[in-house]
């Protein structure tokens, strides 16, 4: 074959091969891996033990998850420290705290929830790229399992970043490092063992720690009408870059005396909740900053109502959102 023939064939070969190359590349991008991870966490059956680390604190927990298209059913049990158990079924989340002899029940917002049915899920890399940078960090092993490592780096100090180790075969999350803008570790979650059982029995998912005489705090117990909080609306003056209102609804939250307005602001990956409720005399609520692990909260009183802003974001973000909120009577 002459050189001229090569030149003629080259564009044709490229035209034939390029789509295949692009398809192969697209399925191996960090964004594609994250989408697969979301599906794996929801759809797979898995049972494992993981360690949670933050600063000098270490906790060992066991998770049993039965996957399905409704978001799955799972049970998390603490193996160290005080006994704690969390059971999520399709309708509710039960948090059982034997040391306090209490059970907290919250409604679960799954794929069938009226609130979230219209909300897009998954990772939209194009929208996220303004605030995060996605990186392929190669491969590593966790608990003997070969993993793909993905980096999600924040572009500013208003959000955290992640390093995620995903099972190379299943895309299951094996290790997660939460890092700040300086790439300093904030907290780590890592599986030390993991299995993918074919089936998981109902018994393995049933709560075991609920005893007699426990106090049950159930969301929706309040008799206060929801309209009480629907008569007002909230507006944010200046939000952290990239954060937009994703959800607004009035609901009953366990432990709250009045219906609560729940606003969610999200940058597509991180999300922050604003809870607004009427203040009851003598009721103590958070004022100023607080945190648990990487979750920050900021409380503020405003015009007879109380705002609590909560999210897995830096403190500056929850404070900025709390200060931006303004009440607008309808």
């Amino acid at each position: 074959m002459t050189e001229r023939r090569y030149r003629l064939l080259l564009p044709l070969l490229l035209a034939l091969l390029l789509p295949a190359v692009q398809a192969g590349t697209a399925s191996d991008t960090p964004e594609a891996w994250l989408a697969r991870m979301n599906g794996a966490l929801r759809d797979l059956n898995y049972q494992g033990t993981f360690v949670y680390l933050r600063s000098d604190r270490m906790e060992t927990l066991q998770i049993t998850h039965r996957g399905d298209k409704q978001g799955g059913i799972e049970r998390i049990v603490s193996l160290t420290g005080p006994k704690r158990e969390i059971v999520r079924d399709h309708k509710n989340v039960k948090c059982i705290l034997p040391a306090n002899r209490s059970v907290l029940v919250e409604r679960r917002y799954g794929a069938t929830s009226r609130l979230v049915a219209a909300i897009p899920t998954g990772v939209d890399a194009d929208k996220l790229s303004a605030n995060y940078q996605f990186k392929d960090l190669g491969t590593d092993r966790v608990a003997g399992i070969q993993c793909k490592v993905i980096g999600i780096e924040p572009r500013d100090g208003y959000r955290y970043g992640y390093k995620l180790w995903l099972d190379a075969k299943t895309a299951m999350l094996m290790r997660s490092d939460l890092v700040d803008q300086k790439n300093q570790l904030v907290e780590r979650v890592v599986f030390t063992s993991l299995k993918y059982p074919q089936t998981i029995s109902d018994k393995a998912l049933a709560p075991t720690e609920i005893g007699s005489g426990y106090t049950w705090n159930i969301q929706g117990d309040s008799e206060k009408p929801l309209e009480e909080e629907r008569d007002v609306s909230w507006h944010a003056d200046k939000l952290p870059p990239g954060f937009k209102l994703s959800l607004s609804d009035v609901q009953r939250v366990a432990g709250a005396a009045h219906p609560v307005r729940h606003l969610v602001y999200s940058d597509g990956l991180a999300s922050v909740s604003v809870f607004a409720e009427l203040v009851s005399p003598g009721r103590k609520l958070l004022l100023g900053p607080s945190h648990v692990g990487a979750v920050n909260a900021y409380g503020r009183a405003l015009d007879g109502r109380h705002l609590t802003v909560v999210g897995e974001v830096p403190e500056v973000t929850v404070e900025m959102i709390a200060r931006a909120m303004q009440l607008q009577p309808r």
Partner: protein
Amino acid sequence: MTDKLREQISALADDSLLEGEHELLVRRFGVDRSLRLCWERYHLIGEAMRKGLPPMDTRGFADRIMAALDSEAVHQEPVRTGLLAYMSKAFAGMAVAASVAAVAVIGLRHDAGHSNQSASAPSEIVPSNTGFSVTPAAYGTVSNATWNGNTPDVQAQLGNYLINHNEMAASLSQPGVLPYFYIATYDPRTQTNQPNTRNGQTAASQDHRNRR
């Protein structure tokens, strides 16, 4: 604790426990603190051998590892199956020492970046264009705090809000497994029940001041 139980815990840590024994052992964790402590020690040893210890609080983790080894040496017979079956004492000592040293190096590097941080130090990650100053809790102060410095009432309400937030957040973007660590790792023993100067006030009192 019997040798049989130690073998089962070791097998659990090594992911080789028989299927039928799994649930029973986990249930026993719930009623026997010594089993849970043993389990934690085995995990530390396993993590040290896999060099998976975190680059933070080096001394604490090293102490825990050494304490775990001391405890194993003094109180327990060698376990013949599972994790410890891989460890002769000499190998174990070398492996752990090497891991601790590696962690110490990483930890020193980490500490260098945080040694000047305190609860009152300015955070490096606070953007300069926020228009207000904050006093963030430094990384080093996170250690034993859970909703730091707030009364039990306030902590309980924040816990309720966090669960509710997690459910919404999970629906919006991130999968909803990770946030439950904060609830599952809730430890009432680490709580400071005395309110600090800012938190735990009644909302009405601050609202009154805001209006003035």
